[in-house]
């Protein structure tokens, strides 16, 4: 790392430090909001690490997330809590690798449909197992507080950013940019495109499963229909695209306004949340292609031209 890179890292480290004080400084209401944001930051940022460069839209977040919540649901009484996100991440990574091996050779459209179906598939599987064993949902009663959850998510977010930063500097990151531009060229310069995509797809898989495991105590009672709710997958895509996938900070810039807006709408007009999703989607497509990252790039370009540099 050179001096310039250290200079870039310091503001992020300070931001992280400041974020760590949220539970101490703010009311429980805002802590709850911050927890939701931290959750979406992890989900959307890890999602963008894969989907940004490859342009494959994954709707599998809910599948990985659900697997994570069930890991906690099944394991919290017998295992120390810190192990559960790790186990969930391992399972999420394996599931993602399997799904990736099957689907990433297909074109983008098939991939979207398959990943959407995946959450449903896993949900049906869990429901079936539960019916066999006569269970419905399960209670996750722990001593984990909202603060603990928030701090764990914050730590996870830091890991995701670190992973993103490392990948961006690595050959894998470069390979993915090439794949995103022209997959035929990528193969012809020697990139094993299938392997690269599968490797990268495990990251959102691991992250989303770990988030699910960490958040399970917050729901107290978990059942397949809520744990695997497809809405989550769509929210993550919208937030990531609103922020923009071109830069590591992009999804964060989408998560903060979207979460605030979502909260506002849920309180004012609870039935209109899907409308918000639709409107933001139209906004992205027609007004903000590239999200806030793209907007920022355009502003900077105009500024540089205007400045006559």
């Amino acid at each position, binding site marked *: 790392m050179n001096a310039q890179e250290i200079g870039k890292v310091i503001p992020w480290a300070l931001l992280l430090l400041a974020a760590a004080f949220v539970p101490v400084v703010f009311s429980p209401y805002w802590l709850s909001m911050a927890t939701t944001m931290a959750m979406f930051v992890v989900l959307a940022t890890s999602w963008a690490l894969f989907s940004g460069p490859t342009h494959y839209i994954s709707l599998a977040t809910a599948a990985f997330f659900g697997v994570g919540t069930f890991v906690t649901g099944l394991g919290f009484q017998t295992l120390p809590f810190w192990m559960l996100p790790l186990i969930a991440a391992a399972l999420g990574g394996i599931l993602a690798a399997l799904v990736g091996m099957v689907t990433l050779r297909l074109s983008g459209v098939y991939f979207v449909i398959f990943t959407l179906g995946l959450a449903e598939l896993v949900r049906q599987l869990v429901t079936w197992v539960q019916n066999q064993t006569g269970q419905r949902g399960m209670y996750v009663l722990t001593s984990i507080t909202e603060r603990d959850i928030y701090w764990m998510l914050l730590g996870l977010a830091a890991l995701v950013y670190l992973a993103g930063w490392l990948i961006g500097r690595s050959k894998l990151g470069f390979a993915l940019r090439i794949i995103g531009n022209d997959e*035929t060229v990528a193969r012809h310069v020697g*990139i*094993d495109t299938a392997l690269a995509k599968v490797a990268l797809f495990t990251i959102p898989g691991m992250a989303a499963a770990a988030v699910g495991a960490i958040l399970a105590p917050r729901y107290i009672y978990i059942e397949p229909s809520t744990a695997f709710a497809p809405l989550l997958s769509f929210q993550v895509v919208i937030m990531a695209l609103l922020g923009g996938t071109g830069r590591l900070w992009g999804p964060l810039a989408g998560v903060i306004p979207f979460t605030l807006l979502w909260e506002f709408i849920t309180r004012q007009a609870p039935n209109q949340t899907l409308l918000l999703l639709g409107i933001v989607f139209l906004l992205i497509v027609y007004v903000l292609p590239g999200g806030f990252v793209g907007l920022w790039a355009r502003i900077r370009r105009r500024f540089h031209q205007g400045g006559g540099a």
Partner: protein
Amino acid sequence: MSRTVLEVQGVTKRFGGLVAVRDMRFDVTEHEVMGIIGPNGSGKSTMINMISGLFPPSEGSIRLKGAELAGLPAHKTARKGVGRTFQLVRLLPELSVVENVVAGAVFGHRRRWGKPAEAHARQLLERVGLGASIGLPISSLTYIDTKRVELARALAGDPEVLLLDEWLAGLNPTELATGIDLVRSLRDEGRTIILVEHVMDAIRSLCDRCVVMSSGAKIAEGTPAEVLSDAEVIRAYLGEDEDA
């Protein structure tokens, strides 16, 4: 003695009912420029695509220094030492000119990364005559400059054999002269090149040997002077309306 670099034996490619390449065979020796010529649709690009691993041959064997390439995916043939350009130029529009060339240096036959890869890319860009436009975005390059970037990318992995699919097509007369000089300079460096070309001047001045294809099959092989005076070759060319 010069060694055989590439051996093509009994290669056939079918697309459904269409036989695009039929029982092709030829050898390419080290430091040689070998031309593949023939009318439109005669199967030249299909032959190149099979060598580079874009798709596998239906039958036959393609050996690079003895190692079988037939059926290998493109990333493996690239690592074994096949470099290519495409008939329709393919660049990476969101990457810089230098990154486009670095792309060819990182994962392929001879690998470089970081500063050495970038230095290598800049040197190649200089080499192919793109020094001046190096800082431009891909979208504002002239046509010949896009071809130069693609050539530099293909060279960046130090390939054992370089496949140029109509690299000179679409250039104006001045550019064409520059292009021919450039390919000749590559040849003088001792590169092994397979050149698919329609431009007769280029074939005459660049190729040591030529293979002529017609309807997927080889109809002649020899020096450019020999094949271009061959009766069957003349018939194959006159039998259809050449565009220019």
